[in-house]
């Protein structure tokens, strides 16, 4: 698994790539050096940037009324657009649909970006789309567009949940307001899931493909620490990608992991044990840490600070990473344990099997049509089912061997179990005399508890029959 990075020294490689990139980004109507700056800021996205640029055409020409760009998370969609629009100084309005809880915010943002705050204040109290189009037309007749105006909408999948007329109207905004405006929608979801029932103006579909392994290497090597050489950092990135590429291709996540684990990687170098070209030893040092870090991909169970602290003291302990999901053992009173066991049985056994498990002389149980289609799935996979309080108590009385009186102390123990979040209350608000609960503990936990009271829970579970 050791890959030694061989290559020309960084500077020559970089300048060759720069000229290759700028050769692709040529468009009359924009200045050369601006295009060059754009190309430098967009590594590995030159094809897409070139395509976008050629669709945009010269600033004063019309462009297609709506463009839909889709691609995975962190594939550079917003980044490319922002760089293009900012560097080339084109009039644009960027709106994130997450922020637009109501359409008013969208309208105001667009009018503000194009026509200033006076225009935004012309909108009436709760404007409809009709008002927005009217104000836009008024403003645009006063200040017509000399360059194409762009409205960029990020997270466009949220537009599907707004009014049904918003998405079709935005797609043909150019026609409705009779102005040189193009709407660009960015989303992670494919266009087929957006199309309204009666159809709409179809936008131009552009795909931003995912980065390949080489491209990821190139991009990640760019944020290297200045005090280390480029080869050293790219060998680190190589190792990192080798471990994580099959699990995660998200650029953001990989950058986070690279930043998090770099200090550990450099540790032997700082201690003077290893030279920076000795990749084999560095690999042996970092490998167990990366394997441990695999558990925290995407999860962020521990904050970066905690992670670094844990790294420092990890030589002493050999346990697994204990994030929030690891329960510490809770000491419960005797009857509470049995209540919890009874709750677990009530959640994971179907109600019709109670008679068989808990009644002393149940007689013959007919094997009726037990085998329904979803019998194949064990109840443990489907999650806990809600049960009424009466059922819990019935199971509890049959499970506890001594005679227990139904006093208030038993009921208060149930409430404390709910407070400890070992049980969850699921009843609807107004049914006070028939509360329903669910058991929220895992099988391992309940096995540990039942071992402490010498109760064989596996014999009572339907899934383990």
């Amino acid at each position: 698994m050791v890959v030694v990075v061989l290559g020309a020294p960084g500077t020559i490689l970089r300048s060759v790539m720069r000229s290759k990139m700028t050769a692709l980004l040529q468009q009359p109507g924009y200045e050369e050096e601006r295009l060059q700056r754009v190309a430098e800021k967009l590594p590995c996205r030159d094809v897409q940037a070139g395509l976008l640029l050629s669709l945009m055409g010269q600033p004063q020409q019309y462009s297609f009324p709506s463009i839909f760009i889709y691609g995975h998370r962190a594939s550079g969609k917003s980044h490319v657009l922002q760089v293009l629009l900012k560097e080339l100084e084109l009039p644009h309005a960027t709106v994130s649909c997450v922020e637009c809880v109501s359409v008013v915010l969208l309208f105001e943002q667009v009018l503000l970006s194009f026509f200033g705050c006076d225009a935004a204040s012309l909108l009436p109290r709760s404007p409809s789309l009709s008002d927005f189009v009217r104000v836009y037309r008024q403003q645009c007749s006063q200040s017509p567009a000399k360059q194409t105006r762009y409205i960029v909408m990020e997270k466009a999948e949220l537009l599907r949940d707004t009014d049904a007329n918003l998405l079709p109207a935005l797609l043909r905004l150019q026609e409705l307001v009779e102005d040189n405006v193009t709407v660009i929608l960015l989303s992670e979801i494919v266009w087929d899931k957006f199309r309204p029932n009666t159809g709409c103006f179809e936008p131009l579909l552009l795909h931003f493909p995912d980065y390949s392994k080489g491209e990821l290497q190139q991009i990640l090597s760019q944020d290297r620490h200045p005090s280390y050489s480029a080869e050293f950092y790219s060998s680190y990135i190589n190792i990192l990608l080798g471990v994580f590429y099959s699990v995660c291709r998200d650029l953001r996540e990989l950058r986070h992991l690279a930043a998090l684990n770099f200090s550990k990687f450099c540790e032997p170098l700082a201690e003077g044990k290893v030279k920076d070209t000795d990749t084999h030893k560095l690999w042996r040092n970092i490998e167990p840490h990366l394997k441990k870090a695999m558990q925290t991909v995407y999860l962020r169970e521990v904050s970066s600070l905690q992670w670094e602290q844990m790294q420092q003291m990890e030589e002493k302990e050999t346990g697994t990473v204990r994030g929030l999901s690891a329960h510490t053992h809770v000491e419960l009173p005797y009857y509470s344990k049995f209540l919890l066991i009874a709750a677990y049985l009530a959640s994971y056994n179907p109600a019709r099997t109670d008679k068989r498990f808990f009644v002393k002389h149940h007689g013959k149980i007919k094997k009726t049509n037990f085998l329904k289609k979803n019998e194949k799935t064990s109840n443990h996979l489907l999650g806990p089912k809600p049960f009424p309080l009466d059922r819990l108590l019935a199971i509890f009385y049959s499970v506890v061997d001594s005679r227990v009186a139904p006093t208030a102390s038993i009921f208060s123990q149930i409430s404390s179990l709910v407070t400890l979040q070992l049980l969850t209350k699921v009843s609807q608000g107004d049914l006070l005399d028939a509360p329903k609960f669910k058991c929220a503990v895992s099988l391992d936990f309940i096995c540990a508890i039942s071992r402490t009271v010498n109760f064989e829970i596996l014999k009572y579970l339907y899934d383990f029959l």
Partner: protein
Amino acid sequence: MSKRKVGAAHMPVGECITQVQEILRQRFCRQRVPDRPGGVEAQHKHLLGLLKRTAVHGESNSVLIVGPRGAGKTMLLKCVLRDLMEEKEVQKNLLQVHLNGLLQTDDRIALKEITRQLSLENVVGDKVFGSFSENLVFLLEALKKGDRSSSRPVLFVLDEFDLFAHHKNQTLLYNLFDVSQSAQTPIAVVGLTCRLDVLELLEKRVKSRFSHRQIHLLSSLTFPQYLERVQTQLSLPDDFPDENFAQNWNSSIKAVCEDKSVRDVLQRHFNSSKDHRTMNMLLMLCLSRVSVSKPTIKPADVLEASRMCFSDAKANMLHGLSILELCLIIAMKHLNDIYEGEPFNLQMVHNGADGFFC
């Protein structure tokens, strides 16, 4: 930015390309109205006659233009209006109100829009009306000419007509058709819709007041006609400043359209949809590959554009998944097949995918 072409040329290539882009973009993106509508002459004549009768002779009419998306309904209407406005009398008298079902989602909003477009805000002022019909009648009365003898004809264009049928009680439609049936003011109501079953959306009382006149725009293009249209769309007009360049361009377009692979591609597009919009999208993608360094359209451009149009979006997205995510998707597919579409949760998928993880 412009290169000087060697040889006799009126304009440098860069300028020519800019002009070409300008003209063609107006056609594809802005959907500029062509001089003569192709293939819809009968419908054009019918609609023109109808509107002329309203505008000149004061006869009320209503008509629905029905056709699938991209069939050219708005283009037809714009053509007809442009031809209509050439007559001086019509230009002086006819008032137009354009409503859109996407924008005017409510009858109240629609009424305000009508007031605004007829420039009668001052006349209405702060009046409060009892009902919708009172308001509408008041508006139409206000349009009477000075000598109070007759009212100016009004043309109501309702885009996305089917959305108006979803308003409460269909008040706007009822009143408009009512006015068109009673001889109060000469109005013409033109509705454009993509739904073929639009009449079933109308209430009984609305339907009875409608004249049941429908103009259908169901495209009956044959493939040779489609090819011709592609060629005309891409060709430069005769009044292009640089004749030499225009001739070269047009002949190269002709050569491209006769190329075998391009024909196959266009046949595939023709088989999936014949309407203007998809054609415009394809041609726009071809146009975006024209630049100063490559000043013509080649067959490879059309092939590449077609490939972009037909690319499978879901396959593209699947390509970008990591191996772990792919394992989960395979497990989900298995579960879907085993349980025939019953819902499943993450726990089940994880169990099923355990076999893939070593």
